[in-house]
């Protein structure tokens, strides 16, 4: 019982420790925070992003394969440079790439549980360089 109690405690603290490290992680172009109402919220960007290139969420912690349940993509915070042709995509755990949603404005889509966990990316097709950013939500 004694050993079991200690094991449970260590396991729990280790779990919490991982969570805290993710919470504080400073990413190369992605960062995350935890919110009690909606789980982990992450964002990433490329400024400016070349046309046609997939810009994957890339956290400095190296934990990029995540159980994303919702992703969205935006052009710029001030919406002054609309990128009508852009896509939000996802590479599932099996390596298959999916174009989740493409179009203008603030595009957003959910991700089926059968594709989780996986990698999220944003991509623009303006023919030049544009500022784009992505946001994602995932469970623990």
């Amino acid at each position: 019982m004694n050993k079991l109690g200690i094991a449970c405690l260590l396991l729990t603290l280790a779990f919490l420790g991982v969570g805290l490290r993710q919470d504080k992680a400073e990413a190369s172009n992605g960062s995350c925070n935890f919110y009690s109402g909606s789980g982990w919220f992450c964002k990433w960007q490329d400024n400016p992003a070349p046309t046609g290139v997939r810009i994957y969420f890339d956290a400095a912690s190296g934990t990029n394969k995540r159980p994303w349940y919702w992703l969205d993509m935006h052009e710029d915070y001030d919406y002054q440079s609309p990128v009508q042709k852009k896509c939000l995509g996802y590479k599932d755990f099996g390596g298959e790439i999916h174009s989740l949603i493409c179009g203008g404005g603030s595009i957003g889509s959910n991700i089926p549980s059968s594709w989780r966990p996986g990698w999220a990316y944003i991509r623009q097709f303006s023919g030049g360089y544009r500022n784009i950013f992505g946001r994602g939500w995932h469970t623990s």
Partner: protein
Amino acid sequence: MAHLMKPINRRGDRIRIAVASSILALLCLGGAAFAVSQGGTDNPVPVSEDAGLAVDKSPSAEEVRKIGRFSMLEEPTQESLAELSKTERDLIVYGLKQTDGKQPGALSSVGRVQTTLGSSVLVFTSSDKICFYSTKSSGQNLGTCVPMDSTISHGAYVTGENFGSGDFYLLGLVPDDVEAVDTGREKASDIQLYGNIYEAVVGPEDLNVVGRSESGEAVIKQSIPIGMYAGK
């Protein structure tokens, strides 16, 4: 000495077990609360459980409705909002946060259509943005918020992989002067119009969507490079 140590160890055991149990219980409660906050569904929309839905009763909201370019939009009422599913309500709350990138907007008008593909499509406005989201029977939820002005003149669309198939799901929004939508191909009956919304499942090839007036004039033209979007 040994018999003196025993009670201390037991007390230590009890403390450790109590601490571990408390932490585990907190984790379980947290997980349960999170699951509840996600509506207990597999396809949650990222909004907080306590997020309110603000309705815009200002004169400017009335002005937005008076524009009259999207006749499926109506003033939101308690009755019409009560008819929405939790996912639809969450999509509105989520969409209102996309309208200016800073403060959540307030709902000035809303409309909904059911399509023959089994989707429920929401259209709503806040300030100078118009949003449209589809909740599909397959569990796929997707949509966008776009500027009102450009949508009146050019329409708007989103497209994405149709979950579970190699085809693409296409969802578009057009103003009232569009009476029919076609692709300019010989068989033009593949796109259905429901009020201001059109919807189709199409192959992964480029598409030119034309919105036509009652007289057949092309009033909206959209070049949709699905082939490029589908490129692996």
